[in-house]
């Protein structure tokens, strides 16, 4: 009678373990993120291994086999979450490195263009442009009146605009 009870309990535990394995496979295929996949895979693998070991131990009754499987189950329960945590920590560090590299590249390439400064209003002493010399603050040039820049012969300076714009003021 006790043998039959142990066998039934063992069958139930092994069935639970196989169902946990099936759920873990479904979770690994359904989730999109690596973290979620790791969660589903690791937790459910631990449960499945423990359930299968306990089921085998129950089925074999009081024996050396059951003691060995319970010892292996203890080792797995201790070691499997540790390994999963190490894997998750290393993946997180690697992901952080990749994210920082991408952010750095984005800062280099996607910097917005500098906003142009407001153009100061030019104050003309005279209504006629070019009649007085003045300093253009934006282009850092000095504008002389036409009379100073013109040569002796007016035919050499064909366009008056070129004569108006002149030396660079530093």
């Amino acid at each position, binding site marked *: 009678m006790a043998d039959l009870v142990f066998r039934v309990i063992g*069958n139930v535990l*092994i*069935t639970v*373990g*196989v169902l946990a*394995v*099936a759920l*873990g*496979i479904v979770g*690994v*295929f359904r989730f999109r993120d*690596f973290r979620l*996949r*790791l969660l589903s*895979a*690791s937790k459910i*693998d631990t449960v*499945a*291994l423990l359930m*299968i*070991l306990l089921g*085998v131990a129950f*089925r*074999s009754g009081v024996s*050396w*086999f059951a003691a*060995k*499987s319970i010892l*292996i189950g203890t*080792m*797995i329960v201790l*070691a*499997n979450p540790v*390994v999963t945590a*190490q*894997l998750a920590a*290393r*993946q997180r*560090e*690697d*992901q952080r*490195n*990749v994210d920082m590299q991408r952010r750095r590249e984005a800062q280099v390439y996607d910097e917005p263009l500098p906003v142009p400064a407001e153009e100061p209003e030019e104050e003309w002493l005279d209504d006629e442009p070019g009649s007085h010399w003045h300093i253009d603050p934006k282009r850092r040039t000095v504008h002389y009146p036409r009379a100073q820049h013109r040569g002796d012969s007016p035919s050499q300076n064909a366009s008056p605009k070129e004569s108006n714009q002149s030396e660079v003021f530093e």
Partner: protein
Amino acid sequence: MIFLRIVMFALLIAAILSALVVLRGPTKWDRLLGYGLVAAKVNMLIIVFAYFTGNSFYLDIALVYIILSYVGVVALADYLKAHGGSDRG
């Protein structure tokens, strides 16, 4: 014993599906996770097979196998962290 045969067949199917994770995973970390999954499934298969044949030394093989798979997962994770595994590939 037909129950144990069915369980072993189901674990074999699960191991093959876990091997598909290695082929499918978008990143290298997913492939490493698939390796861990296959190792765990094969370990369960070895444990059930140990009870199926009645030899308790198969449990030693299962113990050594799972320890080596853990060590391999951590070593490969160190390698991927050093060489950048979060990109696709």
